[in-house]
């Protein structure tokens, strides 16, 4: 069907390794939840682990790594650019807590 398919002749060993890695990383996220960290630190660490998990899943389970490089670049650049573009509002969310009018903070 595609170049990705042509690269599927290797055995299931690699998929199993990726699966075990994903399980371990998911377990690591659960461990972070029980660390004595503030919410921001916890969020950053969990998101970092989540991004590694997502990268492994996209590249190897979804075989993006085996597709043409142009397609890989298109997917990664386009997706990451839009996702980063969504992050512009965080400072405003902080303003909601430290300022009026809707905050419940005394």
């Amino acid at each position: 069907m595609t170049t990705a398919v042509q690269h599927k002749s290797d055995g299931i060993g690699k998929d199993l390794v990726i699966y075990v890695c994903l399980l371990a990383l998911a377990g690591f996220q659960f461990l972070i939840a029980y660390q004595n960290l503030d919410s921001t630190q916890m969020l950053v660490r969990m998101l970092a682990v989540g991004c590694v998990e997502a990268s492994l899943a996209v590249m190897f389970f979804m075989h993006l790594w085996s597709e043409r490089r142009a397609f890989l670049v298109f997917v990664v650049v386009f997706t990451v650019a839009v996702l980063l573009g969504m992050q512009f509002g965080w400072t405003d969310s902080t303003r909601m807590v430290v300022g009026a009018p809707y905050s419940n903070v005394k």
Partner: protein
Amino acid sequence: MSQAELTMDEHSTSPMVGTAFSIPSKKLAMWLFIIADTMTFAACLVVYGFLRNGTANWPRPFHSITNVAIMTFILLTSSLTMLIGVRSARLGDKASAFRWTMVTAVLGIVFALLHIREWQGLIAEGMTLFKNPWGTGLFGASFFSITGLHLTHVVSGIIALLVVGVRYKGGRYNADDVEILGLYWHFVDLVWMFVVPLVYLLNLSH
């Protein structure tokens, strides 16, 4: 032959004509859907983060992560079984591909049932879309929206697995269709990797 016809003829035999990135159109359509759906989930999670960050009395109602851990394990395992199914389909082993696709569907059903049980537990504790006993009512709205959207994807995936699996076995669909469905299922798994930490683990009561 007119100039316009000549130009059209040149275009029809041009090596540039074909699917983008030399990917079959159905597969490209699935990738574009996945990218678009990524934006949907990302928007939901960013809005959730915005609300959580901007609300002083955000609830932390989860005492145990056992159920979520089991759900995560099941969904990750279903990705592996889907991979095996796709590989079998590629090798032309119809019986094995059908079997593993059905195993994936069963795992998806177990995940959905555990998810519904999780919801029932929270609803029994008094949580609704607009209020809950622990704090701001926004928690229920965001929790049910995000997990509900994911659950909708899982249920859609289960239906697709059953339909594609049966039709592949019957010869109406081919290995390409199984592979494209596999992309969708892995995406559902991928989204869960962000839903769990943001919606469940960050709201764990210590």
